[in-house]
């Protein structure tokens, strides 16, 4: 059980699809770790506690955590 599901905003999805195979695999593994603890994992608050930034494998991600009842991490942006 991962804890949170992960969704991708259009900008993040475009970056995700532009990754080569090995980079994307590394991203996916790291994203699964993030999904278990989106408020930890060395993440930094960016505006409010649910709006955060952290390193996800080969990239840096800006994301938003939607809590109880939704349990979704929305990756807003990927920079790598």
């Amino acid at each position, binding site marked *: 059980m991962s804890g949170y599901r*992960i969704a991708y905003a259009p900008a993040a999805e475009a970056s995700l*699809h532009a990754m080569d195979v090995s980079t994307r695999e590394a991203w996916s593994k790291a994203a699964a770790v993030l999904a278990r603890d989106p408020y930890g994992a060395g993440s930094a608050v960016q505006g409010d506690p649910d709006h955060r930034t952290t390193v996800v494998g080969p990239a840096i991600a800006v994301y938003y955590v939607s809590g109880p009842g939704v349990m979704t991490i929305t990756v*807003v*942006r990927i920079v790598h």
Partner: protein
Amino acid sequence: MLAMSSVEVLLELEEIIGEAEGFSHHYIVNLFDFEWEVAALVSTAQPGPQDGGPLPARVVSWRELLPAAARTGSCIVAAGRTVSGGHSREAGMGDISTATWTTHVHGEATRLPATIDGIRAALPDSQHPAFDLEIGRTPAEDLHLVLVRWSLSTTEAADEDSDVIARLRRGEQVGRPVDPEAGVA
């Protein structure tokens, strides 16, 4: 800005890349037909598309090609769109740094400055004091995350992200949630 003509760059690329796996002379010619700037993807990835599809993950300028080729022993030519928009800021940075990040702004692959000096040069003068203050006080372990935020602020990415964050705060769903253990979209 390319300091060499496209033909000169093409000849250099042919000489450098030679027998590299996946290399296609026809492919490079097509890039120039489409008036794309030559760039190099330094990895074991496949060449980018010939017709304007998604850009490869890691695009470096042709100026980085020579040292990159020497370091890795292989290069595969990919394509970057002709420098425009946010890229012009990079051109304005002169020789401060060629290190960049890549992200997508309004669906277009966009390079971002990825050094303190490069980001500072891309910021308006009025923001330099706030940038210097924050960077000076940021613990080293958090520095890259703070730099990404400042770097993104030099493009329209910041506005694009603000819109998405506002929708999420209102409880809207953006994108299709998936279990990460089941793979990504």
